[in-house]
């Protein structure tokens, strides 16, 4: 079972060196214990472009699809047998990156 573990941020700052170091340790553990699928940090929401090609021609819009105070700053995709395991990992991930986290299952 895979879970999308999103990092929710409301500050403009990137991870500090200490936070990055803690994230690296956490990632190593995810890999060692077989929970790692993928992870990455994202550039600022203002760097996003929204594309809509449902009509005649593709429309490009500058900026994120949703303007909000809180935004997606990065994510993990984790493999876990059930939500209890996923929540435990996410709690440690939140501690490591020092940010709020959302856990959502893949279908």
């Amino acid at each position, binding site marked *: *079972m895979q*879970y999308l573990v999103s990092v929710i941020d409301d500050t403009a700052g990137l991870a500090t060196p200490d936070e990055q170091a803690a994230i690296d340790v956490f990632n190593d553990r995810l890999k060692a214990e077989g929970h790692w699928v993928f992870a990455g940090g994202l550039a600022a929401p203002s760097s996003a472009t929204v594309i809509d090609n449902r009509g005649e021609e593709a429309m490009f819009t500058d900026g994120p699809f949703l303007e909000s105070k809180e935004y997606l700053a990065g994510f993990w995709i984790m493999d876990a*047998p*059930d*939500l*209890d395991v*996923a*929540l435990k990992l996410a709690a440690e991930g939140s501690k490591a990156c020092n940010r709020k986290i959302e*856990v*959502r*299952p893949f*279908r």
Partner: protein
Amino acid sequence: MSVADVREGITQAHHEEWARVVASLTRRFGDLDVAEEAAAEAFATAVERWPADGVPPNPGAWLTTTANRKAIDRIRRENKHDNKRKEAQLLYDDDPPEPPSAIDDERLRLIFTCCHPALAMETRVALTLRMVAGLTVPEIARAFLVQETTMGRRITRAKAKIKAARIPYRVPSAEDLPARASGVLAVLFLVFNEGYLATGPDTDPVRHDLTAEAIRLTRLIRALMPQDGEVAGLLALMLLTEARRTARVSASGELVTLDEQDRGAWDAALIAEGHRLVRERLAAGVAPGRYQILAAISAVHTSARDVRATDWSQVVALYDQLVRLDPSPIIALNRAIAVAELDGPEVALAAVDRLEHRLAGYHAYHATRADLLRRLGRSQKSRAAYDKAIELAGNTAETAYLTRRRDQLG
């Protein structure tokens, strides 16, 4: 077998077997929704068949077998074109089937799943009442004063989340148990309180089905964690409260306050059991949590021959201890009620008035003020406070009591 016997048999089977049927089907099919629907269908079949065929010798086995067939029928119907998925679903739980002696374990699994911390508190309560206690959606909606459709959606959404996010169906590991149990206790306490002081103009003032179910489930948790102080504390608190249930509402449906209750009508066996648990916790010598302190307060009240013999300094001391753990205004309000007996209504009123900005919307705040003002002979202010309390109270017996008290003011 008479019609009455059959009806009694069905009611009893529902009370004793509902959770077991839901639990064993959830284990087998890994799906609460399938389990709930199949259990409901099995009971509906019993209502149809038992009057003609008689109550079977083992109603639980009959219901489980019938529900299993209903569940398999449904899964076959739904997965006609996707047999692989059906197999996967049927194999989701690969533990061997439980022996009948493990019925309590089944129920526990169900409780921990329904009270999972990834679900909102109100959802946990609703789900526990539906899946474990077997209340219908309209009954739960009525108990919590929400629309049936809203309650139905809440339960449906919760079942979908449990399935989609794969909330596990098991009793947590020993290491997680204390934290998870405390979430379960909070749910059971809410269920108990709703039963003890039921809300709604068309509801019985005391819903024995809810208080009894909360006690039964707390006993199960206690069997799982006999050393846990808060589990023992909550069970003691419920027993000592339940012991006073029949004395608490008069024949005319009016609330009878502690000082006016017929103490001879209290249930001596429940009180003895509650006191035993409180003593056991005192002997443990571990700092008590909130349920244990509340139970100790209840034990002081139920130890007194009458209200004058109550050891109020002990009650206030226990409230002081509770305030340190939980500085909520409701605890402070209850402390003030005890202070009135120890230091007089004037001192208590000053303490109560300090809570106004936090409790102005709470009926008990106004009811307490009204009573203190009445005892101080300040009738006009007392009347206004009773008016406000009556306006905010949701329990029929309480409204009747407050109205009489107000109308007796000089």
